């Protein structure tokens, strides 16, 4: 860790007028600072800012500083969101980590975290160690020759499935963007992960009202039962009426460079009977276009299986 300067602005205006790296729960930032992966000169502790509140009266509104556990345990929150949160990290981490920080968390790629290895995301142009290295956990969708790292957030997958939006504030004003469009695939510039502009602060997360999202689920497949990132995950919400699928939301995690909405799978579900056969047929296209790496040839198959499982469990929810 490099020495840095720490300030704690007490208003959004003050925070936006200063230059520095925002510190929320610190579970990503401090971790990466200890590893010398992030070396900010100046850190702005935003925990005193009034970015709080969980409002479920018309859609869901979360202040960016709400902690993962508080959102997960709020009764009005759709199951797919609670479930994704509760399957994330550990109790202790969820008590500290904020929803805003969660959406901004960095990849878990081991090379990104080790300053002794080449990594285009950490050091543009240095090369990607994962493409020829240990890439079992890495992405098969949305990858490029420059980077194959997954976006590691669970809840972002659920939020993207539900068309969530985020509000961004800067010294020049605020704007609202869809979370799905906010994230970027790596392309030639893996160091750019999203559309956040320098100095911009996430103030709020909004999930539009979707009554049938009460019938939703998040399936996370991983190498141990808790406290581990997804090898593959699927967020599903289903509107089933009289045995037919009226509408569906499906997104996948652990397999892509950003939370991966599966619009084609949703299309294949709409109007079909809610049967395992339908689920299997729809899921069969989930991995179309996937580019497996040397150590994760199994992921396309696992993705399809995970989507089927999530659809089955979602149809029971």
């Amino acid at each position: 860790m490099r020495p840095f300067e720490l300030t704690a602005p007490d208003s959004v205006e003050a925070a936006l007028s200063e230059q520095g790296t925002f510190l929320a729960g610190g579970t990503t930032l401090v971790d990466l600072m200890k590893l010398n992966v992030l070396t900010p000169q100046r850190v702005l502790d935003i925990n005193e800012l009034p970015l709080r509140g969980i409002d479920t009266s018309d859609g869901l509104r979360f202040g960016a500083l709400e902690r993962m556990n508080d959102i997960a345990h709020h009764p009005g929150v759709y199951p797919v969101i609670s479930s994704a949160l509760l399957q994330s990290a550990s109790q202790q981490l969820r008590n500290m980590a904020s929803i805003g920080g969660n959406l901004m968390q960095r990849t878990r790629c081991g090379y990104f975290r080790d300053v002794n290895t080449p990594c285009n995301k950490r050091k543009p142009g240095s090369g990607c160690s994962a493409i020829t290295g240990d890439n079992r956990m890495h992405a098969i969708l949305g990858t490029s020759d420059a980077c194959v790292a997954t976006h590691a957030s669970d809840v972002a997958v659920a939020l993207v499935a539900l068309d969530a939006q985020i509000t961004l504030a800067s010294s020049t004003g605020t704007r609202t963007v869809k979370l799905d469009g906010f994230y970027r695939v790596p392309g030639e510039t893996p160091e750019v992960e999203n559309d956040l502009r320098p100095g911009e602060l996430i103030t709020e997360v909004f999930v539009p009202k979707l009554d049938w999202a009460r019938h939703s689920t998040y399936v996370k497949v991983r190498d141990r039962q808790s406290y581990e990132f997804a090898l593959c995950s699927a967020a599903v919400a289903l509107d089933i009426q009289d045995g037919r699928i009226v509408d569906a939301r499906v997104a996948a995690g652990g397999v892509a460079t950003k939370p991966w909405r599966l619009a084609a799978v949703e299309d294949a579900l709409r109007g079909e009977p809610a049967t395992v056969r339908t689920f299997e047929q729809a899921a069969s296209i989930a991995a179309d276009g996937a580019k497996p790496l040397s150590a994760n040839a199994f992921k396309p198959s696992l993705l399809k299986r995970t989507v089927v499982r999530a659809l089955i469990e979602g149809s029971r929810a």
Partner: protein
Amino acid sequence: MTSRIDGPLKVTGQAKYGADNLFPDTLHGYIVLSTVANGEITAMDVTAAKSAPGVVGVYTPFDVLKLDKAVSSVFGETWVPLQTKEVAYYGQPIGVVVAETYEQARDAAMTVEVTYDEKPAVTSFTDGLATAEEPPEIRGGAPNEMSVLADGVESIEDALAASPVVVDNTYFTATQHHTPMEPHSAVARWDAAGLTIYSGNQAAHLQAEELSTALGVDRSQVRCINPFVGGAFGGKARTSAAGFLAAAAARALDRPVKVVMSREQVFTATAGRAATAQRIALGADKDGKLIALRHDSVSSTGMDRSFVEPTSHGTSREWYATKNLHISQKMVPLNIPPVTYMRAPGEAPGSFALESAMDELAIALNMDPIELRLRNNSTAPPGKDLLWSSKHLDECYQIGAMRFGWANRSPHGHEDGDWLVGMGTATAMFPGLRFPATVRATFKADDTAEVGTGGADPGTGLLTVLALVGAESLDIAPDRVTPVLGDSALPPGGLSGGSTATASAGSATMVAAVELIDQLVKLATSAGAPFEGLEVTYEGGRVLADGRSMTFGELLRATGRTELTATGSSAPGEELTKHSFSSFGAQFVEVKVHKLTREARVTRMLGVFDAGRIINEKTARSQLSGGMIWGVSAALHEGIEIEPSGRFANADLAGYLVPVNADIPDIGVHFVQYPDTLHSDLGAKGVGEIGVVGVAAAVANAIHNATGIRVRHIPIRIEDLLDS
């Protein structure tokens, strides 16, 4: 059932582990590791580090802290850091930065620039199998390759060819690491008396030997203190780089120095467990009697070739009755960190192979896997006349099968909702060993007693056992006995390794107690003493004669003494020429595998063990269930990914998975208690390691039962079970 005596201290944070000792003026050292796996360091630019805030010393192979060969009476030579510019593995300690604070040392260490003359690294175990070498020596000096053949049989190949049923497969186990909760660390301080070092270790007197030889000072000038050890498992049997560097830097700088490895550093700067490849061929008759057993083992090792993981010697050599046996051991030296003893070295990975093979044979014979094992139950190791001193493996299986509901197992598992469920079993064995140990027993004037020895309690419960055996031998209540461990100033107490500590220190305690009581009686009857000239007896902490009695405390006070001390020693001896010794067990595991996404999770476990007399069921149970969790971990989680460059891809606890609570079900542990007094007067054999033995195979066998998929490597992961 006695609770751990040091439990309250540990859970309230009052137990002082090595790195908890902080003296005024202490400096902090941070170790620098190599980032290539093979080559020579041509330069180290330490300019920035030397001028960084708080830094008082930077030591490298160019600016060296001189250390000689480190030698101990049990382990021979041990590697000492910084004495060479040669790099033999990625993550090798090549420097230490010492500063006023830990953070200053760490930040400065990250500025050190190293230039290497890099050479190609040899890092692939599987590529090396074809050219595996003969190892220098295997545990106990056994030959690398050996056969036991029935009369008239020419070779193991002939015996296999003549077997009506044969299974022949190769099994692989991953590189692992102990990575105990307490990272390797040391606090070293010099004064007129010499060096005092606080560092978690498995045997204070061996650490003192290693440090005194390395530092070139007399053994009497080195005192090693480690009353609490935060896990060791074989990985703290030798002095760590942290220990050597703290001691040498503290001497050079004339201030106390503390060195604590980071979790990441522990993975490469201390030795782990070898990867293994094992080919096993079993030949049997139609009734399941083994005709031939062939087990050829290869293990990985560092370029120092300092350790070989003896998988066939640790299992097939002794486990089953077979007329024909052939075992062999080879090794593949690689540019990887050294390997060493790790909980059940040999037995743990060896049993994965052998007990998976036994399951495969049972299936080939269409026979119940327990029945197959009982049909091959041995009365002595193959080709040896020394019978097992005490063996109740059959009873372990009978009780286990009943308690686990084995009769409900179907050959093809069963379904439970979205999950496939299967049961598996495996045999566990671990040799009954003992080390020489000396114990000091003391009666004190306040009517308490102390029992002390230099051995260590790395979480095993030895401290509690010492109090219990001391109390029993001195015939007083356990709460009057203060056990003392972990100090090289105490008599050498063996080694907390090889599941030997209870039998070794316990036996010596019994001898010391007899000697102490003898001295008390002499004192009581000596001239001028209260029982002068009388025929006295000792009972319940009192000396009795003529209807009169006095406690030992009263007697000491009456004779103007504060204490009375005796030592007693015990070592393995004649019994080794009469019997073979082992602990035995039967492991049972139930798993579920998701029909679609194929995660395998353990849902029930039971281990039934025959480990002689159980001195304290509570700590013994903890040892065994802990071992069984290790087995689940090996089966489903643990494995170091070694990159072609020699870098460990997952050298931290985020990437090197071990189970969390959610992965572990309730664990049943049951003992059949048959004191083995042929092994030692105490009747206890070891429980530290046998718990892990066999579990990985039982998991793999249960997975096969559930899914029909046989996985011949560990860890078994989701992709291994996605058959289509």
